[in-house]
């Protein structure tokens, strides 16, 4: 079980992920609505894992991922993206993301991916 930071610009997605991760026994240490806030919250909260949306205002998920990895190369970040943006996933993996989930997602698959990344 891990301490998780959720970064997504839609409240609905954050709430959904929060519910799924909470039901899997994880602790949600914080939420952020854009990439900039995500970087700040990461430095402040030092979570075990971050779920990071890709398309977000101010700073997108890929840029936020790069910034977090620069300050903490061991950061575990799972990218969260919509169907059809799998190209972005490849870029994210190249930039250091540990995993990815594609919306719409199902709870067991999300928990499985998070478990795998936390174990890595």
């Amino acid at each position, binding site marked *: 079980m891990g301490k998780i930071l959720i970064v997504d610009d839609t409240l*609905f997605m954050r*709430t*959904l992920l929060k*519910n*799924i991760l909470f039901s899997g026994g994880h602790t949600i240490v914080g939420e952020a609505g854009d990439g900039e806030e995500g970087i700040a919250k990461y430095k402040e909260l030092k979570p075990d894992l971050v779920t990071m949306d890709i398309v977000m205002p101010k700073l997108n998920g890929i840029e936020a991922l790069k910034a977090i990895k620069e300050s903490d190369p061991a950061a575990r970040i799972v990218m969260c993206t919509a*169907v*059809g943006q*799998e*190209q972005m*996933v*490849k870029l994210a993996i190249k930039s250091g993301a540990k995993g*990815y*989930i*594609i*919306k*719409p*997602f*199902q*709870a*067991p*698959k*999300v928990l*499985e*991916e998070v478990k795998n990344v936390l174990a890595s």
Partner: protein
Amino acid sequence: MTEVPVKIQHNNEWVVVKLGIGDDRITVPAPVNKEIIFKTVADIAEKKNILIITVKTDTETVYRILSVEKVLQVLKKLILGSCNAYRLMAYFMSPAIRGGVMVKDAQWDKGSVVVVRSGIWFVSAVKQVCVPVNDVAAIELTKRDVQGKPTDVIRIDHLDSGEVSSSLVLCPLSTLQVLYNYLKDTTKSMDMKGNELDAVDQQVAMLVYSGMDSHAIENMLNIPHKQLDTIYDKILNLGLGEVVTIRREIQLTTKGVRYISDATKSQTN
């Protein structure tokens, strides 16, 4: 002619026969005494270990064949290679995504895509995957990174044991466009305008898909039970969902209240 042991449904009973397998037909001996010519097969489907073959000549005849996986694989390979269907050589990846997570170590298989009446088959030397037409959730022409290059592919989203999986088909663009049009036409009955559900309805549908129950949905969206019921009705009426469980809410009668009062007393005394 090779012979394989199977059970075949005949006059509503399963009978054991040895099918004779030829280059262009299967011979079914007595008591059935029929020949299944591959070219006349209009549909082929599989349910567990039963192969359902529809032969169309002047009339339609359905054969149900039960056997071990190895035998069924041989039959499927022969029939899918020659039956009356839309067929093309292609690379496919099935499944490529399962439940929103990319399948690890998924690889492109070289083989053929065979579209029959009830399903889309992906057939290679080692794989035979069927996506029933009724389980197709979406078909899209999109791009995927193939050997470092963005390449046109068809993505087929389908339900597989209750979760959405995506399969990919790769072939020359002109063929891809023809296949895309054909698949869109085959699955036309599943098409919707896209404006049937409003924003809240869509959120409910997404939460249902994610595995949330009614109670969690009410809490997450902060909507009353009655509103959720109305949205459920809308989703059901559109054929987008089905009832799995009907949960009851009850209140205690005087007798019930008296019972728990007594029980509480006995616990505290």
